[in-house]
């Protein structure tokens, strides 16, 4: 009889082993999965390949824009994961961040105030499941996941009844013109690549990749945060002031998410739409990035520099989704979310566990 036998490895894998294995799995699962669905759905593989993998698209400004956005979100979720909060609520949190920015712009057309308000909304939305997990042992994954739906339906309600926009396609008024981010302009090499993503986002991303690397892996703050992630009991016995480090980690995460949502709102259509299928991903404002980015956060395992590579790959996946159309786009998008999380989980398994498959007990 076949038996699968799994046991935990004692040592953590090296960075390179981790990188190669995860990249391999990531690319292969991702491509195989989308290909299968593409075949079932009837879209020509040839078109898919020529559309996405032609030379320009691999380094197009749109691709870079999404790489930056996904990296920002993944960084935010990575610090959540490190602090023991498996945050599946990124979707709702990003959309709430956009809402906060939009509402603030109506009354106080100032970017920093808008950012603070969106940060606060995200902070509250993250704190509820996190506190429940730390102090009451309520499943953070489930709570944060269900809070997505609450946020999305709430936004739908606001878009339809408060802003009272178009009935055929409910949407908010555009955000105040005074609010905008800075972009690379001119006719130089940089603008060829970065014309679609704001300087603010790029700078924040770079700063936080370095900062989180130092803080999480080389500093007492990071040791404490990660200790909470390992076990609350261990953290308290080690003298970690749990409430303070909870707030620090959620603060950093909310900041990154609010910058990402500002980028998505201000660099995109500058309005909030009705989320058609507030179910999973694709037709919500944030394209299911809240879920897929969690996969990247899990994969990177606390190493912030790995996030850039994974985000780039995932953005290619999103390009495939964006080049498709109709209900087909919905299928691909939903599957992309599932497959990227799955590859993250499988990599985690192969890195941290020995899997033995034996065919017979007898010798």
């Amino acid at each position, binding site marked *: 009889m076949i038996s699968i*036998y799994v046991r935990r*490895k*004692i*040592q*953590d894998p090296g960075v390179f082993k981790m990188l190669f294995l995860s990249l391999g799995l990531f690319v292969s699962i991702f491509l195989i999965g989308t290909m299968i669905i593409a075949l079932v759905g009837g879209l020509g593989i040839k078109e898919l390949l020529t559309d996405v993998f032609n030379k320009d698209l691999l380094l197009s400004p749109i691709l870079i824009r999404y790489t930056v956005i996904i990296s920002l979100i993944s960084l935010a979720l990575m610090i959540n994961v490190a602090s023991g909060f498996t945050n599946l609520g990124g979707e709702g949190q990003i959309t709430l961040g956009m809402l906060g920015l939009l509402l603030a712009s109506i009354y106080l057309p100032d970017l920093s105030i808008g950012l603070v308000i969106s940060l606060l909304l995200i902070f509250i939305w993250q704190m509820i499941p996190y506190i429940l997990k730390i102090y009451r042992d309520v499943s953070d994954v489930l709570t944060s996941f269900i809070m997505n739906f609450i946020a999305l339906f709430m936004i739908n309600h606001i878009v339809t009844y408060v802003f009272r926009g178009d009935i055929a396609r409910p949407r908010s008024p555009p955000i105040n013109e005074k609010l905008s981010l800075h972009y690379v302009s001119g006719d130089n090499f940089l603008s060829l690549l970065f014309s679609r993503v704001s300087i603010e986002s790029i700078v924040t991303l770079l700063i936080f990749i370095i900062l989180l690397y130092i803080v999480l892996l080389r*500093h*007492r703050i990071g*040791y*404490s945060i*990660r*200790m909470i992630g*390992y*076990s609350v*009991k*261990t953290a*308290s*016995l*080690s*003298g*970690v*002031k*749990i409430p303070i480090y909870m707030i620090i980690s959620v603060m950093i995460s909310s900041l990154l998410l609010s910058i990402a949502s500002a980028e998505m709102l201000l660099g995109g259509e500058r309005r909030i739409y009705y989320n058609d299928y507030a179910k999973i991903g694709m037709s919500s404002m944030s394209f299911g990035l809240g879920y897929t980015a969690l996969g990247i956060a899990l994969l990177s395992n606390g190493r912030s520099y790995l996030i850039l590579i994974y985000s780039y790959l995932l953005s290619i996946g999103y390009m495939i989704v964006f080049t498709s159309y109709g209900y087909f786009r919905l299928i691909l998008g939903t599957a992309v979310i599932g497959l990227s999380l799955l590859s993250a989980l499988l990599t985690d398994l192969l890195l941290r566990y020995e899997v*033995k498959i*034996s065919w*017979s*007990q*007898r*010798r």
Partner: protein
Amino acid sequence: MFIELDKINKFFGDYKALDNVSMYFRSGEIVSILGENGAGKTTLLNIVYGLYRPDSGIISIDGERLRYITPRYSINKGIFLVQQFPRLIETMTGLENLVLLLNERREDVRKLLDEYSDRFKIYVDYNKKVSDMTLIERQKLYTLMSLIQNAKMILLDEPNTLLTNDLEYINFLRRFSREHEGGVVICSHKIKAVLDISDRIYIMRRGRVLKEYRSVSKEYYDEILDIMFGHNSDTSTVYKSVEKSNRDEEISREFSKDLFKTKDLVVRDDIGAIDLSVKRGEIVSIVTIAGRGDKELFNVLAGLTHPLKGSIVYDGEDITKKPTYERISRGILYIPDNRLEIINPRYKIRELLGLWKINSSGVVCIDKMNVVYRSLESQISELSGGNITRLLISIILCTKPHLVISHNIFNGLDQRGYAHALKIIRDLRQERMSFLMILNDYEEALEISDRIYVLNEEGSKEISIEKARLEPKILWRELVS
């Protein structure tokens, strides 16, 4: 029944737990495996019973050659493992556990239990929930279960208290092997108890079988001690001398006012009030039976859970409601029973030291405690259990707390490490550091403490240390009363 192990190897990561072990067990004899902690005895038994799988080697049972076995297989063959902490489902009663195993109706199982209790003279109250049972009761219940299942071979993992205190059980083991033609395998480090009962002895050290005695006599004691702890090392003599010097050593201390005190502390419904006090420069221990309020007491003292009643005073201040980190910042250090609750095995040694605010000079403490490690960048999970305990003691050395509250602080230490830790703790006491130790092993408690408390259903009770040293049975009687 004839079980033969042929060149069994077993790794945990890089650590070789079993190294080419070959043994045989057969019906009608009592075999003992002697070895210190970490010698690989438990791993071996787990492999024979099927809880672990060997990385290489062959197990043959009555001539059938197998790569690994599963518990289901060994139960069908009549092989049973009575573990140190028997694996029973705690939220069910003893009877329900048996119903699970036997696939029969409750009434029939009850009849069977009564019948076998009478036949083998082992009595247990099986209507209790397993979580309410003592370790001994669990071990006895498990033995009964295996007898009902027609056991041919019983493996006993560290049945220390049963061997040293329970004549009934020892007689049962003798009868089982002589009259019922059953096989018994005992793993232990209690040499004397084992010498009384065994027909054959294996001695293991660091995963290897060093010697097999085909006949047993009491004169082997010193020889076995030497083999168990290594021919060339002087550990056994160190151990003996520490044992001696301890009795002679009497340090006069001025006991001023209490540093730490609990008043009418109730930690569990079925355990009475706990009153204890610790003065500066004093080592106080509370002896309990494992699972009888020791964990709860530790959690309350650490502030992880709230007491049902009573208060805790530290340095003249009521800290009953203070969170753990405030207690730690006031100079208390906590070491729980389960090392995983104080150390994250995925941390590097450097990161652990950073968390405890120990700067680079901390390496001195680690070296002083003889922690064996590759570099500061190596992961804690690479260290063995004994090394982790040493690392914890070196954290005490570095952070210099006023009071250390620990639960089974000597877990995982071999005799040499134990002697070393004893010395370090005594030195720290001279620097007026206090220790409050919750211990399950009363011999350790007698050896190290200045004062000793016993915790049983009625609550805590102070026992005169001089009396207890002369006659340790007093302690035991208090514990089980």
